[in-house]
């Protein structure tokens, strides 16, 4: 049978452990107190008895046994409070002097110390602790004191300890249960919310009490995670919609073309080749989409390594030199000797290629493109591509970073609208930023990435 949920909680189990530890400490404390107080009192009593018996032994030396008997009787007479006990017996245990009628027959041995009960006139018993000493030829002397008080204190102490311990355990148990209830309620709340979310209600969030404790921290982190998941899912849905929408057109066109060709008795090779080319273009778009999705999923991060973006920029510029020369566009490439960042060489190259390709595509003949890599204090590198093309209006810049986004006037030009989306995905994976701004004239795209030293230092 499973214990009720409360008893299975960590809080409760911790409470039990705490109770045990606390109980043990309290026990230790009480034991110490017991020993300190009661033990002290006992030791005091015993010292008194010892001192007395020593004194009496001296008397026995000096004045002999009869003298001793006199002293004993004198002392017994003077003991009005009846605290002390004296008894001198001969070898046959016959009493000679003292205030006890006979040698106690039931003696609890304690080394030389004995504890016994003295019968009283009213029928009760008094607990006595006494020391026995041999004097003279077989004679025995017993000196003791009433330890009734001691035993009472002992009893009181024990009772107090038991009650105290019991109270402690009881209180800590109740406390533990209360704390457990409250914590359990909090966790149950979090669990309830997450179950609802799992069931499909992604918009829900875990309630945060504002107390700032670790439960709130957990709740906040869960909520942040949920925000991220919701964003990704929205992104996925959007992509799904975009893909469906934006690829339907080309696919339909391809299909129509093929249908026409199918009706043709001898379809010309060129037309078929064109269909293949169109299918290839569609495949390329799918590939680009997949690539963006994979970059966004973080799949490339585990292989990140130090990479020189200055070198990549120079390579990409050199790659496009021929294209810019052919269109009489001035391509200026300004890079430091080295600019190390942590990332993926191919992804960064592809991002820069996309950006430079856009610049070349949209810059008119005789224009100018500037590629610049520079340190951006305190700890980043900025890759900047500026062109003298028509630019992107301020209101459209955000939109252009999304998949399939294209400016209306550019729809007739070749391209699938995924170039900037890939650059954005690459920027994000590299913990970098992507900004579009007005070049007056033209467009300025800036991709900034954390430099290698800071990344290493941060981890």
């Amino acid at each position, binding site marked *: 049978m499973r214990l009720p949920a409360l008893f299975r909680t960590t809080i409760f189990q911790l409470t039990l452990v705490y109770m045990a530890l606390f109980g043990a400490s309290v026990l230790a404390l009480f034991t110490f107190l017991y020993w300190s107080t009661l033990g002290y009192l006992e030791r005091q009593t015993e010292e008194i008895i010892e001192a007395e018996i020593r004194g009496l032994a001296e008397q026995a030396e000096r004045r002999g046994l009869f003298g001793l008997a006199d002293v004993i009787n004198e002392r017994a007479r003077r003991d009005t409070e009846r605290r002390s006990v004296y008894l001198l017996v001969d070898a046959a245990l016959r009493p000679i002097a003292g205030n006890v009628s006979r040698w106690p027959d039931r003696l609890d041995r304690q080394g030389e110390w004995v504890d016994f009960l003295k019968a009283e006139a009213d029928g009760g018993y008094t607990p006595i602790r006494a020391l026995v000493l041999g004097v003279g030829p077989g004679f025995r002397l017993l000196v003791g004191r009433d330890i009734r008080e001691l035993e009472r204190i002992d009893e009181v102490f024990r009772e107090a300890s038991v009650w105290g311990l019991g109270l402690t355990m009881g209180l800590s148990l109740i406390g533990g249960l209360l704390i457990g209830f409250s914590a359990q309620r909090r966790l149950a709340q979090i669990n309830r919310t997450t179950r609802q979310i799992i069931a499909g209600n992604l918009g829900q969030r875990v309630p945060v009490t504002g107390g700032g404790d670790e439960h709130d921290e957990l709740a906040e982190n869960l909520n942040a995670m949920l925000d991220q998941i919701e964003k990704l899912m929205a992104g996925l849905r959007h992509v799904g919609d975009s893909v469906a929408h934006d690829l339907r057109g080309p696919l339909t066109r391809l299909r129509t073309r093929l249908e026409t060709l199918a009706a043709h008795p001898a379809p010309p090779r060129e037309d078929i080749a064109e269909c*293949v080319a169109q299918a290839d273009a569609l495949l*390329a778009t799918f590939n*680009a989409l997949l*690539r963006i999705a994979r970059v966004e999923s973080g799949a490339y991060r585990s292989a990140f390594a130090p990479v020189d973006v200055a070198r990549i920029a120079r*390579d990409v510029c050199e790659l496009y030199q*021929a294209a810019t020369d052919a269109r009489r566009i001035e391509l200026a490439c300004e890079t430091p000797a080295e600019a190390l960042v942590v990332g993926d060489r*191919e992804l960064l*190259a*592809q991002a820069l290629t996309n950006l430079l390709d856009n610049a070349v595509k949209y810059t008119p003949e005789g224009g100018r493109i500037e590629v610049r890599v520079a340190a951006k204090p305190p700890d980043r590198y900025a890759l900047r591509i500026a062109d003298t093309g028509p630019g992107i209006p301020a209101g459209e810049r955000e939109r252009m970073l999304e998949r399939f986004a294209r400016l209306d006037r550019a729809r007739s030009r070749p391209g699938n609208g995924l170039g900037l989306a890939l650059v954005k995905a690459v920027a994000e994976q590299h913990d970098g930023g992507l900004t579009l701004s007005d070049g007056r004239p033209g467009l300025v795209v800036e991709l900034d990435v954390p430099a290698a030293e800071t990344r290493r230092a941060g981890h």
Partner: protein
Amino acid sequence: MRILIIEDDKEVASFIRKGLTESGWNTDHADNGKDGLFLAATERYDALIVDRMLPVVDGLAVIRALRASHNDTPALVLSALGEVDDRVEGLKAGGDDYLVKPFAFSELLARLEALLRRSAAAGAAPATMLQVGDLKMDLLRREVQRGGRRIDLQPREFQLLEFLMRHAGQVVTRTMLLEGVWDYHFDPQTNVIDVHVSRLRSKIDRDFPSPLLHTIRGVGYRLDPAP
């Protein structure tokens, strides 16, 4: 030419087989790593096409096993747009080239031919001179001439021509050029490579009687004295 295809996806396998058979090659097929390894180890093939994701034994393990037993049959690795750093892993395991699905058959064919050419040339002394038709390239002096006339090339153009000459007679795709000349491994979806090639063409072909550099539409380029 005998090629072994180790691929568990029936459609892809038959697609490749059909294409290769039409190009005049003999093909064998295994649909899992264990059978593939067995065939590759016991029969002689000129090249292997190995998919990464295979049942029983995965593609890279097959290649590693072959290399460990001194079997150097050239292997081309196929992979879905899958794990990180695929290419490096594939090459480290002993693969000779790497192609990501989906791919155009022409790309596969071009790379396969390049693989075979490379393995045939391996072991021969490194050339100091390349010649295609009347185009001569002196690798030591970094000089190019055609029909006795000296041609001035920029360093990158030289590299580009060298790559084309080393693959003379074969189709070379734009991706192969980007990899071989610029050492970047992504699909240059733009025509940036084309511009470089046409600039090269204007230097080595324009003022000469017969064209050497041919464009194969939709696939790539081929440097060949024959048309």
